[in-house]
């Protein structure tokens, strides 16, 4: 069994002391930011990106991944106990979870959230391990035209799934792509849009954009609308589920895992979309559907399983094609490239430690989360007592040091200020930052593939329609666009609150 041997190798990597430690750090940080509203994984990962440079690539990615899926666990805790979704992906958990807490079943809700997440995480780990190498084989037959069309599809989906106006989101995607053109043209060496600034010849700083638009802009927005922190009322109650609750949860967890795994692979998909999809499904098909609105356990079990499954399967396009499915994955691409690893189909072969180590660490991380979460719920809730006035200067200082230490250049700090103000403006105008970040990462890759595809086709654009893979991608993108223009679908999406994270 190749798969078993490879997974064994992966566990060998994941279980080294250093990697275990960083996996734990990632999970703890992830849980913490999941609990705290107003700090998301995108901001945290961009914040911690520079800190990971000193680490080997595998360790760095293991930790960053831990933050991402850890946040899904943490987000559910406050959603259930305080009706306060720590993450976008746990918004739907508040619907049934908080009702359960009000009925005195908070403990059961927390248990099923953790157990469901763990089950889904385990399944998703196996899925990534089994399908990754297979998809990699498929990916090797991707030509430049196919890559271009796939990225195009990813951009369209990320825009379509973003909150608010589709046209504005596509506008932000294209803006991101244009921003990616700044710097030295990789083929001709021409300086583009650099205004003679040497710091820009290598492009606009990715971390500066991410920290400005997600870190700084978020601080400012949070300061403007001081959030009333509700204090925990009532008791958690027994963590034990009743036999009845357990029995009802099983099918919901299974369905949630399936939905989440599938939606996670989609370019532009992610945890938020998955939890919403699963909630909709449970409300339609589960046995307890008549109880929805009064605290149905299926409404916690399904979405919680789904968001965790999705946060793991969204690594598949990254690991096999080198294409980020959402903003968090875009950050991972940045982290890998800085480490000198080109994400793509050759990663499985060229970086087996990283590939299998990461997969194994996901399962290890899920186990850790289960262990650190259930007994420590009280500690996490206490975290909410830290006032925001102490949080924001800390976040700001960490951002600043992180940005500076990238290249030891203050230009990056000033660049971040500009993007902070721009990010604030964008959120006031309901222009989404996540699609822009994805556009920024994919833009230069798209240009490279477009040029190469056209060189190979001798300037004939029909190549994008003649190649079956490429044509399929473009067709799906077209359908997604048209579907969003239909009023019904749009209405459904608006409540889905997809941030891509």
């Amino acid at each position: 069994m190749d798969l078993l041997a490879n997974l064994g190798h992966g566990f060998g990597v994941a279980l080294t002391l250093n990697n275990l430690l960083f996996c734990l750090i990632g999970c703890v940080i992830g849980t913490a930011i999941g609990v705290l509203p107003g700090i998301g994984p995108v901001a945290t990962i961009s914040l911690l990106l520079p800190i990971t440079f000193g680490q080997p690539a595998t360790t760095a990615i293991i930790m960053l991944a831990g933050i991402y899926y850890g946040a899904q666990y943490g987000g559910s805790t406050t959603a259930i106990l305080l009706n306060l979704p720590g993450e976008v992906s746990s918004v739907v958990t508040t619907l049934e979870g908080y009702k359960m807490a009000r009925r005195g079943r908070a403990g059961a809700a927390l248990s099923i959230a953790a157990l469901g997440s763990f089950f889904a995480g385990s399944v998703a780990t196996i899925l990534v391990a089994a399908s990754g190498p297979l998809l990699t084989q498929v990916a090797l037959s991707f030509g430049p035209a196919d890559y271009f069309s796939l990225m195009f599809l990813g951009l369209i989906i990320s825009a379509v799934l973003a909150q608010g106006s589709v046209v504005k989101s596509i506008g932000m995607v294209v803006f991101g792509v244009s921003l990616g053109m700044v710097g030295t043209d990789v083929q001709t060496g021409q300086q583009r849009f650099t205004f003679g600034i040497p710091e820009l010849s290598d492009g606009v700083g990715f971390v500066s954009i991410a920290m400005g638009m997600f870190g700084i802009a978020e601080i400012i927005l949070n300061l403007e609308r001081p959030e009333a922190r509700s204090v925990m009322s009532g008791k958690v109650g027994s963590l034990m589920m009743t036999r009845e609750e357990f029995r009802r949860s099983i099918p919901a967890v299974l369905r949630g895992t399936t939905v989440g795994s599938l939606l996670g692979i989609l370019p532009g998909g992610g945890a938020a979309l998955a939890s919403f999809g699963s909630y909709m499904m449970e409300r339609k098909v589960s046995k307890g559907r008549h109880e929805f609105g009064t605290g149905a356990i299926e409404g916690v079990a399904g979405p919680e399983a789904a968001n965790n499954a999705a946060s793991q399967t969204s690594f598949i396009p990254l690991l096999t094609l080198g294409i980020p499915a959402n903003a968090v994955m875009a950050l991972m691409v940045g982290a890998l490239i800085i480490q000198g690893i080109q994400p793509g189909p050759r990663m499985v072969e060229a970086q087996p430690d990283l590939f299998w180590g990461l997969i194994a660490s996901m399962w290890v991380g899920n186990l850790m989360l289960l262990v650190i979460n259930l007994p420590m719920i009280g500690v996490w809730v206490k975290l909410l007592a830290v006032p925001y006035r102490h949080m924001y200067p800390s976040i700001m200082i960490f951002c600043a040091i992180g940005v500076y230490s990238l290249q030891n250049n203050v230009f990056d700090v000033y660049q971040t200020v500009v993007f902070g103000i721009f990010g604030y403006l964008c959120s006031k105008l309901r222009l989404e930052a996540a699609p822009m970040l994805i556009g920024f990462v994919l833009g230069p890759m798209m240009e490279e593939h477009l040029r190469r595809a056209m060189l190979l086709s001798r300037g004939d654009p029909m190549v994008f329609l003649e190649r079956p893979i490429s044509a399929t991608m473009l067709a799906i993108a077209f359908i997604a666009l048209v579907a969003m223009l239909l009023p019904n679908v749009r209405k459904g999406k608006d409540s889905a609150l997809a941030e891509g994270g």
Partner: protein
Amino acid sequence: MSWAVGRRALLACSVPAFGGATRASAQAWPSQPIRLIVPFAPGGTTDIVARLVAAGLQERLGVSVVVENRAGAGATVGSEMAARAAPDGTTLVMSNIASHGISPSVYRGRIRYDAVTDFTHIALVITNPTVWVANRDSGIRTLADAAARARSASGLDVATSGAGSSNHLMVVRMGQLVGKELNHIPFRGAGPAMQAVIAGQVPMMSDSLPSASSHIRQGSVVPVAMASAERHPSFPDVPTFREQGFDLASDSWFGLSGPAGIPAPIVERLHRETMAFISTPAVRARFAELGGTPGTMTPAAYTEFIRSEVATWAPLVQASGATAD
């Protein structure tokens, strides 16, 4: 397996990074991690050789040496970055025939460094010939096949590690000999280019021997012709360009450089350690396997060599009409 070296280097990195062995106690160089910029995407000759050298220097200097790939524009993006870095011995770059020989002419007017005066050149690490390889199912086995394909209506696509590389010039000069321009497909480095050739998106590639050698041995690509005067000792079965009736030969070289103004003791130490490392039997054997010859020049000789290379390539590039556009 190049990753095996990389992995050991990574494991070694993790110890000082978290264990705290590199704490800034002594101000003497080397006390900080060293960044070695590779101006190509991972997987090419520059990258393979840089990772070998990084592992060797790390062991000998006692600080971590981190390889950083900064690809683009004929290796000029990464080289420019190195030229701008502080000359404190913590930023080095793999200088090579593209960034420090041919690109200054190919990217004339766009390049923003002087290949000689903006750098401290430390050591020539490896020289090796160029080899042309073909996809297994492309039907191309000899240069005659390639020439016939080139003259046909569809023309011949040839991948390279980027415009401005010696491999690129080989494509241009081969086109002149064949009598029809070849369709040059530049990549960000030999790694992604080789991937496209193996997958069959591009039928041929002009590559430096070290990055192609493992693929030739594995049989994932077919070697067509070696651009050396004699048959290569490591690949005696591969005929040369001359044998096949095309009078072409091309060597590429790769070395270690840093920004201008690195203090002499640091240069001396780096040169000594690099030379000692590449002359160990294990590294010599590895170089032979890759198809390269270790360099022996002093820093001064390497600087002179680069000066002469820039001067030699300028008229050749102009005569060939090679451009990056």
